[in-house]
């Protein structure tokens, strides 16, 4: 029974060596988050009945252990340690229902046995990280490092933590050596199903300790890196704690720790040497609390995850009383039925049979996750990976969300918020008030940023309202701190420990789940406003992906103006908008490619909609053209080519064609003569009257100043006039509403002038044109007396002195 040294049971003795006082020691080496380990630990604790349970974990959390028994506490949860003066510096120890550590703590609480964490205090581990960052030694990505449970995964700064990191997951290495891809299955196959049956609950731990001892012997040779050295320190600290506990509790000590550490804890080391190792470590002031966790986060290897790929499956293995495969397949069938697939019990039976046969072929005693997944794919999903992805997402990973009792200490996010509020002199007050911000001032920018970030986090402290000033550097907010906002802040604690980090994480998550393209664009805008440069990159990537897959040009065209607007905000706030410009240019390119095809076969409403899109894209391209992203050439000239295509294609609705011609004309791309020729072509008798009317609407309609164009260019009006008189009587009633809409939108003055021109008739107009005396439709010559009468007023408006040089003002009138 190498797993336990009961007092006086033989010569092996405790790690303290002979003469060390105290009770027996039981070292339970586990696989972190392994349900098999968890079950074995529970059985071992039941059998051994120790006087104290020591668990690998930060000792600062000792005070929080009783909360684990709270009825509102639901795993998965995580212990969170963060530096008091710097909430962004933090570490997590996630615990799931099936984590051996959780099981051990719960067992201790249920049996009234004290439980303690014995790992090196987080005060030191966090301080180590500070030191690393200062020396630039770390390879970690962000302040908030991954902290898995216990060894290996816990240190985000392990250089090159590869998939086969022996320290990280020694069981995985052993399993891989034995040709198994799932360490948990290997554990079940090799350790749990072997040995003299139910008899010896310590047998698995004994076997594992032997294996670890062998592994460590091969490993210990060369390595001298930081991570390895720190392991030694941690193990020395743990040894000291174990020794102290043995002295204190005569009824026996059980230690639950990573299997990797067991040989080290077993080793006899001189107390003095251990003390010397843990002496003089850097430290920082640390606070701890429980935070809720999710299965999804457990499954993520990066970020805050623990790198478990299948927490849902593990949870199932742990919770299932018996026949895990059959129960699992039944759950899968239930899920698929909910999603509307026909799955009969016969399917489940066949899947179970196939899983069994696969396990036999692969030489395993029982079907595991990979066998059941293969069986589900072949039998329940018709070989398709699509429904399988659903099974993976909902069951293998799972939607489980942990809960933490209200009594848990405040999350660091709240502290960070309080600190920022104090710094920005922005008190949370229940009374509603309005806040005017001038973004040119630093404090106000900070406030705006904070409010935008909180809005992203769902903490609706401030609502932006319409600003009284029109400048882009002004913002108006309506502030009101409701008591439930504190709860919101606590909830937002899952996203991160600082407002910045939490808002960034939240924005990224929102981008992933966003439904439409417009939603992502809006999010990008908010990221800019809230100044989250780190979130902007993933949001932009998702935006680019969405844009690539969106087949509706309308969506793209709608998203483009918002994006271009964001670009301009970015300029105001001095953010780096290179990525944004790149995406906007890409979006524009996709619009260019898709637009001509999307304009075919539209009904009147859709055509009107499309005309609006063309207008908005035109404006956006105009703004974007100033700062073209590298590699995208001259967007404006390409846009003009698209407009030309649109204007020339018969399948495109008249209103869009007319608009395209008009935009080209306004840009000076099309000579007035050419425009007149095209118009003549469209209004020639071959065209259906309704289409021609729509073309006119597109060309001169709406508030686009089309009326003035008609007044200025006589020929165009003549063309319309001639066409209208030629429209057959029965078609006239059809085009009348359209024409009315076109011309009724003109300003009254313009409308009257157009009317007068038409009344005068083509001959009179012809004479006016030949006279060449200014605006047609007015008197033949320039009435200088009336023009002069306006001058004093204009002088007043421009704030000029009545200077003698009148001439330059006369020029304005013409």
């Amino acid at each position, binding site marked *: 029974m190498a797993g336990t040294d009961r007092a006086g049971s033989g010569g092996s003795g405790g790690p303290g060596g002979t003469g060390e006082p105290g009770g027996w020691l039981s070292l339970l080496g586990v696989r972190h988050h392994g349900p098999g380990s968890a079950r074995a630990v529970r059985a071992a604790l039941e059998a051994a009945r120790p006087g104290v349970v020591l668990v690998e974990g930060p000792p600062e959390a000792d005070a929080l252990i009783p909360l684990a028994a709270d009825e509102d506490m639901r795993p998965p949860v995580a212990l969170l340690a963060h530096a008091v003066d710097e909430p962004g510096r933090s570490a997590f120890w996630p615990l799931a229902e099936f984590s051996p550590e959780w099981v051990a703590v719960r067992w201790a609480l249920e049996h009234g046995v004290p439980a303690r964490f014995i790992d090196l205090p987080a005060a030191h581990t966090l301080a180590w990280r500070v030191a690393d960052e200062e020396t630039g030694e770390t390879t970690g990505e962000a302040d908030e490092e991954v902290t898995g449970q216990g060894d290996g995964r816990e240190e985000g700064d392990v250089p090159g933590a590869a998939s086969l990191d022996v320290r990280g997951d020694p069981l995985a290495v052993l399993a891989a050596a034995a040709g198994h891809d799932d360490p948990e299955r290997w554990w079940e196959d090799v350790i749990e199903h072997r040995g003299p049956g139910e008899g010896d609950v310590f047998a698995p731990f004994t076997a594992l300790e032997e294996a670890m001892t062998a592994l460590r012997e091969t490993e210990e040779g060369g390595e001298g890196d930081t991570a390895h050295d720190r392991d030694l320190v941690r193990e020395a600290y743990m040894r000291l704690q174990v020794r102290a506990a043995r002295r204190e509790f005569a009824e026996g000590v059980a230690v639950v720790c990573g299997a990797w550490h067991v040989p080290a804890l077993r080793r006899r080391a001189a107390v003095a040497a251990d003390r010397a190792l843990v002496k003089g470590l850097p430290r920082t002031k640390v606070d701890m609390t429980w935070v809720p966790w999710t299965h999804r986060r457990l499954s993520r290897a990066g970020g805050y995850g623990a790198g478990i790929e299948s927490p849902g499956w593990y949870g199932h293995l742990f919770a299932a009383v018996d026949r895990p495969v059959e129960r699992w397949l039944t759950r899968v069938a239930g899920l698929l039925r909910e999603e509307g697939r026909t799955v009969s019990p016969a399917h489940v039976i*066949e899947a179970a049979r196939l899983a*069994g*046969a696969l396990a036999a072929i692969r030489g395993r005693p029982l079907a595991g996750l990979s066998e059941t997944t*293969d069986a589900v794919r072949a039998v329940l999903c018709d*070989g398709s990976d699509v429904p399988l992805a659903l099974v993976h997402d909902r069951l293998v990973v799972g939607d489980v969300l942990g809960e933490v009792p209200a009594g848990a200490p405040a999350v660091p996010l709240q502290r960070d918020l309080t600190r920022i509020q104090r710094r920005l002199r922005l008190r949370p007050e229940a009374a509603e008030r309005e806040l005017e911000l001038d973004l040119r001032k630093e404090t106000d920018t900070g406030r705006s940023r904070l409010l935008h970030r909180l809005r992203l986090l769902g903490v609706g402290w401030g609502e932006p309202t319409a600003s009284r000033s029109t400048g882009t550097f002004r913002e108006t907010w309506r502030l009101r701190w409701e008591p439930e906002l504190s709860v919101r802040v606590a909830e937002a604690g899952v996203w991160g420990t600082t407002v910045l980090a939490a808002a960034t994480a939240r924005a990224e998550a929102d981008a992933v789940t966003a439904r439409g393209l417009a939603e992502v664009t809006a999010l990008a805008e908010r990221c800019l406003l809230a100044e989250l440069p780190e979130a902007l990159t993933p949001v932009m990537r998702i935006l*680019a992906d969405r844009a*690539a897959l969106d087949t509706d040009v309308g969506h793209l065209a709608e998203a483009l103006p918002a994006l271009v607007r964001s670009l301009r905000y970015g300029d105001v706030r001095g953010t780096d908008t290179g990525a944004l410009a790149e995406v906007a240019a890409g979006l524009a*390119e996709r619009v260019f*490619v898709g637009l001509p095809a999307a304009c075919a076969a539209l009904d009147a409403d859709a055509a009107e909609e499309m005309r609006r899109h063309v207008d908005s894209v035109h404006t956006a391209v105009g703004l974007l053209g100033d700062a073209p992203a590298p590699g995208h050439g001259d967007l404006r000239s390409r846009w003009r080519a698209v407009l030309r295509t649109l204007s020339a294609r018969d399948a495109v609705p008249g209103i869009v064609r007319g608009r395209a011609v008009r935009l080209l004309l306004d840009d000076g791309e099309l000579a007035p003569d050419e425009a007149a020729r095209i118009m003549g072509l469209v209004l020639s008798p071959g065209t259906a009257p309704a289409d021609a009317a729509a073309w006119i609407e597109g060309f001169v309609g709406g508030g686009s100043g089309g009326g003035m164009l008609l007044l200025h260019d006589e020929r165009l009006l003549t063309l319309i006039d001639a066409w209208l008189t030629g429209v057959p009587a029965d078609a006239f009633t059809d085009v009348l509403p359209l024409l009315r809409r076109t011309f009724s939108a003109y300003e009254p003055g313009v409308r009257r002038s157009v009317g007068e021109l038409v009344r005068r008739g083509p001959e009179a107009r012809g004479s006016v044109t030949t006279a060449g005396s200014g605006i047609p439709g007015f008197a033949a010559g320039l009435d200088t007396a009336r023009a002069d009468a306006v001058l004093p007023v204009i002088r007043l408006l421009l704030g000029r002195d009545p200077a003698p040089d009148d001439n330059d003002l006369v020029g304005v009138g013409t």
Partner: protein
Amino acid sequence: MSAGAVQTSGTEVLRPHAEHAFAAELAALAAQDDRPRPDRWRLSPWAVALYLRGGTLPDGTVITPKYVGPRRVVEVAVSTLATDRALLLLGLPGTAKTWVSEHLAAAVSGDSTLLVQGTAGTPEEAIRYGWNYARLLAHGPDRDALVPSPVMRAMAEGMTARVEELTRIPADVQDTLITILSEKTLPIPELGQEVQAVRGFNLIATANDRDRGVNELSSALRRRFNTVVLPLPESAEAEVDIVTRRVDQIGRSLDLPSAPDGTDEIRRVVTVFRELRDGMTSDGRTKVKSPSGTLSTAEAISVVTGGLALSAHFGDGVLRPGDVAAGVLGAVVRDPGTDRVVWQEYLETVVRERDGWQDFYRACREVSV
């Protein structure tokens, strides 16, 4: 068709059956296979998997790999047959469906010839039984006048039957399989008899799931099968390899000159096909839309072969971007409405900016307009 058909020796035939071509390997496997075998199986399921995956036997006999795709595919397929369920192999053209089915049948039953080739004109008799009308008229209806189908023979002898291109078979004929697969009997109402399948009978069907104009399986029939989708080649390298090898073979039979400098173009065609198929550029950074066509490896092969023919007969004998551009366009744009946009978007957003692809971009622009 009957058992007494002409037996040709392996050396003369153009393409020997799997059980003849690999007779030595099968014999070696059978000799050293000490694991339990299901009734009438020539090998244990474990040995069948080894036969397909390749490996070395304890006595040093080398088993060549027949299928180099994911291990899971072979394991699921063999387990399915071992659990007495029918197996449906799905996949695009060129993913070795037929190849896998033939070798499975050869390894399990030692006979891969009990085959029904599915076409739009496959009649019910091909799956159930037909009549020898001369005998029927002369002697009246009896078992001797019956012409059994391959499926019927497989049932009677406990062998593995194969159905190729199941989805090409008209739906009503397909459904004949339902009784066979669920009841494991084939009634002969004309004689008031039935044929009951003996242990060891099973059926492997292959189908192309993304082709147009197929007869979808009824859900009743689908339920009788375990489905395994044969994936496309995992890496671009593997696909380039397959395309190059096949193009070389086809080219030789068509007397086309081999094009040593063509690998660049082959790589390009494979890259374009893969990217459009996966909906993502090969560097994984940009998403692209997928066209409606399947863009299988088989199509890549035909595009390259076509390009080779073009360059040999009308060009300078070197495969150039212009030779494959039209073929690529034809393969990608199946639906002129939507696919053209997809293709142009791909050209403008991906191809245009890629280093060394300018020639290809220009060639594609030329044929696209």
